[in-house]
């Protein structure tokens, strides 16, 4: 195996069995006597590698299977088939060894002892991970510096603000100097300044300790500022895997031309695809009544040419041209993923 590869995921699959319940009283009684089940493929054949020291963004819409993948990578769930290795180790085979290599932060759920002073949590973790005194002190000093824990380390966890709690949680997951850090929504619910601090801290930790980071988030700013590479999944399948810049290159030249026709019948006079010989990837046209939206790759045809072609053929009331920003690209990718609809549920 390549020494540079820290995480290796191959053909990972996870299926769940769910009870189908019809709504209402009748449904409840039906479920009482004759329950029906369906198999849901939460993760369907996903493979990817992560290099040592890399920060990757793991994104996808709600219910795409993100957390299921993360939970398999962290040894919480057992895969239905396929495997994941972290530094060559398989989570289900030797869980105790495996989890020593990883740190996990679930943004919505704290791992700290709610009623105790923060310091107490760290003392317990020190014992659990068998961290030698010397390493512990050194590590604590480093985390203290990056995450500024000193102000609240003696307060009970329940009195911490959300931002403080998140910093404390990140420190807790890094005490044992793991090779891989999983961050699930680390900036959720935080205000802009706090978000910024947390991002800087993550960056610094990754640089100084060489920690590999897997980040799931709904906040695309997190991704833009932290990750070079993203893996996107939707409906349990991988839909994109590459550098952020590649995403931008591939979709970044896309422009959106929007205009309103004076006469909606005129639409038939426009045949961009044939006249400019666009490939499928480079062009999409949407019509709703007299409003037309044309997304096209400006490397293939310049904006100027598109405009003059359009204006020479039809009369328009209004016209505008927009850049596709990263958020827009990802939104489109999500939608695109939604189009390749296929039933993953089969009744048993």
């Amino acid at each position, binding site marked *: 195996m390549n020494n540079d590869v820290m995480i290796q995921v191959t053909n990972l699959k996870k299926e*769940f069995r769910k009870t189908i319940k019809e709504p209402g009283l009748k449904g409840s009684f039906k479920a009482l006597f004759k329950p029906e089940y369906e198999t849901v493929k*939460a993760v369907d054949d996903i493979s990817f590698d992560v290099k040592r020291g890399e920060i990757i963004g793991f994104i996808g819409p*709600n*219910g*795409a*299977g*993100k*957390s*299921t993948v993360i*939970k398999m990578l*962290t*040894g*919480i*769930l*057992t895969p239905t088939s396929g495997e994941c290795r972290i530094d060559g180790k398989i989570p*289900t085979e030797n*869980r*105790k*060894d495996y*989890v*020593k290599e*990883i740190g*996990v932060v*679930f943004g919505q*759920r704290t*791992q700290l*002892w709610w*009623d*105790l002073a923060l310091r*107490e949590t760290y*003392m*317990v973790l020190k*014992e*659990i*991970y*068998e961290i030698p005194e010397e390493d512990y002190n050194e590590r604590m000093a480093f985390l203290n510096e990056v995450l500024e824990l000193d102000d609240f380390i003696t307060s*009970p966890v329940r009195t911490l603000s959300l931002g403080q709690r998140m910093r404390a949680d990140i420190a807790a997951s890094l005490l044992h100097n793991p090779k891989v850090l999983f961050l699930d929504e680390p900036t959720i619910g935080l205000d802009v300044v706090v978000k910024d601090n947390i991002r800087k801290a993550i960056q610094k930790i990754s640089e100084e300790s060489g920690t590999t980071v897997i980040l799931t988030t709904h906040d695309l700013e997190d991704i833009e500022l932290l990750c070079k590479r993203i893996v996107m999944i939707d409906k349990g399948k991988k839909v994109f895997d590459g550098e952020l810049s590649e995403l931008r290159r591939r979709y970044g030249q896309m422009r959106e031309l929007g205009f309103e026709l004076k006469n909606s019948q005129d639409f038939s006079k426009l045949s961009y695809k044939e006249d400019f010989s666009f490939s499928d990837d480079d062009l999409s046209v949407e019509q709703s009544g007299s409003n037309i939206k044309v997304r096209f790759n400006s490397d293939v045809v310049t904006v100027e040419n598109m405009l003059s072609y359009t204006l020479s053929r039809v009369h328009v009331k209004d016209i505008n041209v927009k850049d596709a920003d990263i958020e827009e690209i990802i939104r489109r990718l999500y939608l695109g993923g939604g189009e390749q609809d296929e039933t993953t549920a089969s009744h048993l």
Partner: protein
Amino acid sequence: MLKYLRLHKIFIKQYLKKLMEYKVDFLLGAIGFLLEQAVQIFCLGIIFSTIPALCYAKDGVVLDSWSFNEVLFIYGFSLIPKGIDHLFFDNLWSLGYWLVDRGDFDKYLTRPINPWFYVLCEKFCVDAMGEIIVGVALIIYSTLSMPADVSGAINWWRVLPVIAVMPFAIMIFTSVKTGTAAIAFWTKRSGHITHMCYMTNDFAKYPAKIYNGFIKTAITYILPFALTAYYPAIFILRGEAVWSLPVTVGVSVLLFIISQFIWKKGVSAYESAGS
């Protein structure tokens, strides 16, 4: 193993610190428990005030009988292994009631220690001290209240083997809770199944001979709570049921293996919560 003992000590210390933050709750809980035991014993007293001794009769022939003091002794003894399990391993209940259901079990799997042990020792249930104290007090009180010739005839050396077997008796409680709580890994919640099985320990508080054959077999071998109370108590009192000591060890080890098997299977079937 040493690491686990040290960890357990740390957890207990943390838990006691937490307890200090909720003194009133703890106090009210303890009073409630003491009151419950007092009422139970008061009612036992009322019941026994109508008869000289509790008899086990078949076809009108009295085969065995226990004085009120002996019944109190058995009752008190039953609280000790139960209380010790309760003191150290109470957290298994939360597994069946909400840890799995809410997905909170995730936490236990991301630590480099045995998740079963982690769940077990995370909570230290000081309320159970009440059970143990009441149990010991009842044993002392009932012994002192016995006529001198009866209590004088007790060979107190018999306490030693009973103490030696005690960890196995405690493990019967722990294994029953483990095995039934682990069902939650498939069904999300199983606290009620644990409750049902756990409640059969009520049978063990009284002489096992008064029950019919089915129940007697069940509480000796299947949910073997009689091995944690009646048999060791009657062994101390009268030297009867010597066989129950090795049986306790055997049955307890078997139950432990079965419960660990269910647990292991359960953990790999764990589905967490959410998507």
